[in-house]
C-alpha cells in the first residue's frame, strides 16, 4: 500500500483517539495545558515507534519462528512496559520539569491501549518493516494532533462561563465528543476497500 495512505489513515481517518477510541486515558488526563500535552505527544511518539519496531521483531523472529503466535498479547505487553519504563527513566534524567508535569500519566503509557493497538494492527495487516515504522509514526502524530487540539480547546474553555453542572470533566468529555464527530469528516479520505 502507498506509504502516504498509511500515514493519512493512521493520523486522520483511523485516528487512534478520536476514531478508534484508544488511549483515552492520557487524552483526558494530560490535556489541560498545551506544554504538557506537547511533552506527552513526544513521549508517545517515541514509545510507539520503538514499541512497534520491537514488537515487529518479536513477532517475526520469535513468535512466528517458534509457532507461538498465541502468546502475542502477553509478549507485546511485556515489551511495551519495558519500553515505557526506559522512557520514564530517560525523561526523568533529561527533563525533570516535564517529568513532574506528566506525573502519573507517564507510567500509564504502559497501559495506553493505543500502543498495544498499533502493535497488534501492524501484525493483523501484515505490514513490513518500512510500513510498520510509517504506520507507527502516523498513529503517534495522530495522537499528538488530537491531544494538542484538545488541549488548546481546554485552555480556551477555561476562559468561558461554563454552567456549573458541566464544569470540569463533563465539558471536557462533551468537547472530546464534538472533536471526534469533526474527525469523522476525514472518513472520506479512506480508499474504497
Amino acid at each position, binding site marked *: 500500500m502507498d506509504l502516504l495512505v498509511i500515514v493519512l489513515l493512521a493520523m486522520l481517518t483511523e485516528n487512534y483517539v478520536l476514531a478508534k477510541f484508544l488511549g483515552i486515558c492520557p487524552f483526558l488526563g494530560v490535556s489541560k495545558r498545551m506544554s504538557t500535552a506537547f511533552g506527552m505527544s513526544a513521549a508517545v511518539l517515541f514509545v510507539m515507534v520503538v514499541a512497534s519496531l520491537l514488537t515487529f521483531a518479536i513477532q517475526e523472529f520469535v513468535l512466528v519462528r517458534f509457532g*507461538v503466535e498465541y*502468546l502475542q498479547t502477553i509478549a507485546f505487553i*511485556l515489551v511495551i512496559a519495558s519500553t515505557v519504563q526506559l522512557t520514564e527513566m530517560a525523561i526523568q534524567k533529561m527533563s525533570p520539569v516535564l517529568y513532574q508535569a506528566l506525573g502519573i500519566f507517564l507510567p500509564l503509557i504502559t497501559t495506553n491501549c493505543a500502543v498495544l493497538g498499533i502493535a497488534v494492527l501492524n501484525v493483523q495487516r501484515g505490514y513490513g518493516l518500512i510500513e510498520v515504522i510509517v504506520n507507527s509514526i502516523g498513529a503517534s502524530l495522530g495522537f499528538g494532533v488530537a491531544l494538542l487540539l484538545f488541549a488548546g480547546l481546554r485552555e480556551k474553555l477555561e476562559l468561558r462561563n461554563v454552567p456549573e453542572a458541566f464544569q470540569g470533566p463533563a465539558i471536557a468529555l462533551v468537547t472530546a465528543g464534538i472533536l471526534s464527530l469533526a474527525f469523522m469528516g476525514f472518513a472520506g479520505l479512506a480508499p474504497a476497500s
Partner: protein
Amino acid sequence: MSSVIIIAVIVMSGVGVVMSAMLAVGRKVFAVEVDERHEKLMEILPGANCGGCGYPGCSGYAAALVEGKAVPSACPPGGAEVSSAIGKIMGVEVSLQEPKVAIVACAGDPTLAPERAAYLGVSTCAAAHAVAGGFKACTHGCLGLGSCQSVCKFDAIVMTANKLAVVRADKCTGCGACLEACPRAIIRLVPKSQDLHVLCCNPDKAKDVKAVCQVGCTGCKLCTKQSPRFVVDGFLARVDWAVEGDIPRTVSFVCAPGAIFDARQNKILPWITEPSERRDFEKKVELWKEEEKARKAMAKAGAGGDGDQKPARQPKAQSAVENAGGQA
C-alpha cells in the same frame, strides 16, 4: 503437548531476560539521585499546597527542606505535630512557635461604615480598591467582595450577611494566603491563644474616623488604661503581644465605638442587634465584671505571697462563662 508449554515458557523467559537487561542498562545510564527524605516529607506534610511556608506547594517546601534551605517550623497548617515530625526525619531540633491565626482587622460592615459610591465593576477587592481608592467611605476598611475568602484553602473565611470578611479561628491555619489577597492589608496574623483584638486599621483622627465608620478606633486611649498591652499609635489602638500583662475581658465594653473584638463571642457589640441576644450578652458582661473583681481581689490577697503570676484568663473561669452564654 508438554513441548508446547516448554517452548512457550522458554520464549517468554527469553524475551523477559532481554527486556530486563535493557532496563538494567537504562537504570545505569539514566541514573537520577533522589533523596528518600523528600518522599517521607511529602507523606507527613498536609498536602494543601497553601504556600504558607513561602515555597511553591508542599513539594517545593519538602525540596527546600532536603536542601537545608527551609526550617522545619515553617508549615503553618501542620502546626507543632508536623514540624516535630519534620524534625525527626531531618534529624534536627525544632523550636516550637506559637500557632497563629489570621484576623480581619475591620468591624465596619456597610451598615456601620457606609459606602460612598455605587461600584459596578469587576467584583474583586483588588479591582474595587484600584478604582479611586474603593467604594467605601473608609479607605482602610473591608470592601466585602470576598477576595480573601476565595484564596482560603481551608474555608476559614466567611462573609457575613452584611458583607464583611470574618476569619473562623477554629479552621484558620495561619498560612497567610489571605494577607496577600487583601489589597488593603487589613488581615493580620495574631497568636491563636489571644482573643481580644482591635478591629480597626484606620489611622485617621477621631473626627475623620467617626465620619466614615461607627465602629472605628478613634484613638481615645480608654483601653490603654485597662491594660498595658494596649498601645495607641497616633490615633489607632493595637495590642502589643510583646508587652507582659493581662487584658481584662471587660475592655471590649470600655471601648466607646466598640472596635475591640472578643474572639470568644466571635462578635463585636455593635453587630448584635437582636434584643434577646443583646440581653444574653449583657448578662455575660455582668459575669465578666464579677470575674474581674474576684480576680483583682485574689491578686491583692496573693500579692507578696508565692508571686502568683497567673495569666488573666484562667481556662476554667472561661469555660464557665461560655456555658452560661450557651444556655441563655
